[in-house]
């Protein structure tokens, strides 16, 4: 068999955990090979070894049948291996073009030659339909475009083995479709792709074969065409997974959260949120659906106090919190699972335990006269680790930065649910989670609802929206264009609302 890359019996230890335990992965030329596994199963670690970021503690790597050593990403690059990381690694105040050529600059007489590089980048961008603006700064472009920059970076270096670590977790459904097409196009050119994702639909759509990992061990490799989604998820989790959400009809109570005429001006003078009004009652899950960039993020920032609204009022449990501080809102019972887990959700250099008390460290029980109660912090952390199955090398002492992406997300969700908020604003709560964890988090949200909490869910994923919500508000260009019940609409109709081609009563 013609394998471009073989990783044989790879072992990798981290403090307190064996992240890869005798894993073997063989990549055929020209295939899309999916890598599936629970959060913390060791997927990113395995790929980082292939890319030279970590050195394995055992095992070997072969390229085209020959054993190779990959000491650092430069070695990987020389072997034609490129990687798009789970959390992008771009220089934020550099332009797109500068980021693409960074480290592979053409230099003549000690001076940078941008002209040729630009031509090559534009040609690649044309050929693979990777639309980018070469002169835009990274900090000003969308995540979708940042990802295209990462892909161009690999192509610019003529890499032929491309690693995608959860590329779709941060993309909108439209961008995902586009990416899938691009990936197909790349393999048609003879490139080989390793593709990590938690979404079985995507594996079904593009992958040829799929290797499954569980708790650091290799479970097996299957042909995607002859395997069902259920079989794959069972291989991965070790039990049957329930994809549908079990929930009783909602029993909405009094209004817990009420937004009136909320307006926020954007940087270009246009209203990014325009006269938005809605209520969320106790005992219901209200979902804000929409294509990314239609004002959902700004709306949430205003509700949680991270940004000031220009106009409008926010009432919570009968109190006007329009101008309250973030601390006052939190202590009044507002929970928030933020969209950007690294920016807002975690202090990455704090331990898991210190992150678990990020919102409660100042409350009685966690401190006395300003002195922190570490015993209580560790107790709570251990409970949450247990309950939410947060996996890490050293339990509460693990530095958050070293945790796997999905486990970081689980930690945030655990913390916000633990504070037992009356109103929970959950933005993409299951982003980057494995199917088992998604099932669990969904159940937690439904339980919170049934316990009389008001849940405001913001999600880009239509499946999640349809499954979980009791009421759907569709946002388009900063306005709420539809207020519907999931039973009364089809996914197609929802799509039309989201695209702005249909308007209901708001």
């Amino acid at each position, binding site marked *: 068999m013609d394998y471009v890359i073989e990783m044989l019996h790879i072992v990798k230890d981290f*403090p307190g955990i064996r992240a890869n335990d005798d894993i073997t992965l063989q990549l055929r030329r020209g295939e899309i090979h999916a890598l599936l596994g629970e959060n913390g199963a060791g997927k990113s670690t395995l790929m980082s070894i292939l890319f030279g970021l970590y*050195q394995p503690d055992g095992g070997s790597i072969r390229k085209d049948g020959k054993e190779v050593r990959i000491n650092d990403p430069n070695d990987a690059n020389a072997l034609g291996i490129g990687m798009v990381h789970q959390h992008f690694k771009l220089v934020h105040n550099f332009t797109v073009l500068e980021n693409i050529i960074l480290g592979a600059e053409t230099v003549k007489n000690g001076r940078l030659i941008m002209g040729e590089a630009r031509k090559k980048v534009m040609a690649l961008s044309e050929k693979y339909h990777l639309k980018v603006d070469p002169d835009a700064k990274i900090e000003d472009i969308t995540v979708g475009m940042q990802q295209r920059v990462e892909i161009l970076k690999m192509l610019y270096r003529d890499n032929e083995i491309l690693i995608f670590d959860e590329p779709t977790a941060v993309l909108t459904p439209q961008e995902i479709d586009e990416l899938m097409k691009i990936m197909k196009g790349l393999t048609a050119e003879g490139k080989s792709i390793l593709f990590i994702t938690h979404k079985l639909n995507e594996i079904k759509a593009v992958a040829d074969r799929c290797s499954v990992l569980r708790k650091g061990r290799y479970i097996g490799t299957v042909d995607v065409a002859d395997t069902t989604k259920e079989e794959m998820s069972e291989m991965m989790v070790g039990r049957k997974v329930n994809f549908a959400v079990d929930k009783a009809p909602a029993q909405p109570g009094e209004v817990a959260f009420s937004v009136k005429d909320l307006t926020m001006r954007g940087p270009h003078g246009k209203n990014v949120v325009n006269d938005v009004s809605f209520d969320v009652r106790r005992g219901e899950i209200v979902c804000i659906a929409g294509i990314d960039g239609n004002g959902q993020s700004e709306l949430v920032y205003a509700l949680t106090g991270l940004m000031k609204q220009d106009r409008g009022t926010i009432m919570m449990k009968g109190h006007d919190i329009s101008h309250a501080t*973030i601390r006052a809102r*939190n202590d009044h019972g507002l929970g928030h699972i933020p969209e950007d887990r690294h920016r807002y959700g*975690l202090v990455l250099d704090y331990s898991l335990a210190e992150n678990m008390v*990020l*919102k409660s460290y100042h409350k009685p029980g966690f401190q006395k006269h300003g*002195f*922190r109660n570490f015993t209580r912090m560790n107790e709570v952390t251990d409970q949450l680790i247990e309950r939410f199955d947060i996996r890490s090398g050293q339990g509460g002492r693990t530095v958050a930065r070293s945790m796997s992406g999905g486990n970081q997300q689980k930690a945030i969700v655990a913390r916000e649910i633990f504070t037992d908020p009356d109103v929970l604003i959950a933005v993409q709560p299951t982003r980057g989670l494995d199917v088992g964890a998604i099932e669990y988090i969904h159940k937690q949200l439904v339980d919170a609802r049934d316990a009389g909490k008001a849940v405001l869910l913001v999600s880009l994923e239509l499946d999640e929206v349809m499954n979980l919500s009791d009421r759907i508000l569709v946002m388009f260009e900063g306005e709420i264009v539809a207020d519907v019940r999931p039973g009364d609409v089809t996914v197609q109709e929802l799509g039309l609302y989201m695209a702005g081609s249909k308007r209901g009563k708001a």
Partner: protein
Amino acid sequence: MMKKTRGSGLGGFAASVLPSLIAIIVGLLFGFIILLISNPAQAVQGLKVILLGGFNDGLFGVGQTLYYATPLILTGLSVGFAFKTGLFNIGASGQLITGAFAAIWTAVNCDWLPGPLHWIVPILAAILVGGLWGAVPGLFKSLLGVNEVIACIMMNYIGMYGVNYLIKISNIYDKLKNQTVSVPSSAALPNGGLEHLFYKMRGNFVRFSSINIGFYIAVIAAVVIYVLLTKTTFGYELKACGYNRDASRFAGINEKRSVLMSMVIAGMLSGAAGAVMYLAKSDGLHIDVIEVLATQGFNGIPVALLGLSNPIGIVFSGIFIAHLNQGGYYLQKLNYMPEIIDIIIGAIIYFAAFSLIVRNVIAALARRREAKAVQGKGNER
């Protein structure tokens, strides 16, 4: 099941102290080479003198070491504390000199203060003014987003020129010597019993070391800062803001106030350093009216780096640098020019500043070794 491997508690500690040790050793080697070049015959003897530091002169010398370590510890704490909260306090110099001015002025003008209050109040004045001096960059940073380094450097110059001007127009100016007058002896920091330990006999004449209760103050400050950073909710907030301001805001922490408070506390520590330096007997230090920034403020930076910004580590690194300085003082006995010792100390400090780079080099070497081991295993297969 995943296999648990043993945690690396002690290994982690060693790994964090190692770069400081390497920095020191490389610095000393470099110093030795300079000794060899300038006077080969006495180089070994010279190195010994440096390493002995204060011990060259028995307990008296040790007392001198601790005396000179006192302001180093305080400015080191000032810089290290700011580091821990994500700020670079390069303004210790200005905070120190304004604090010193406040202390001297209060000591001279409030000589009606009874008993120990005559030196306690000047120290408090210095802490207050140093804190104010730190508050300015803190405010600029938190309200306007101005980088604290720029604001601190400006405050250093404003402090230096401002103090020079104020000295000249006030009654604490000694025109003849172009420096501040000596503070009343009741305002000089008492020796606090330390003199009975650190002294030497010249015939039957006792010479006491200059060490005073300032050293206690520095050590207490280190303990307070340590407790503040590791045990209190306030320290938790300050560190969180240092690591990630957005997440701190998200958590409901008033991150503007935190930045301000960090700079104020850093300034207070440097102000205290100014007080303990200049609240001295008449043979002690005086502020010279010259247009040069107070270097003691900048010495806090290497002290903090060498102590890895850990308050307790800073006590030791401050003592260590003072120890070397004392060694340099005694080196003069051996026909070495005083400049040589400055170069050697400078080298050690320089390497300390690069201790983080050293740490990275160690990590890279370890990776290489690990990689080689893997290759070895691979070939065996």
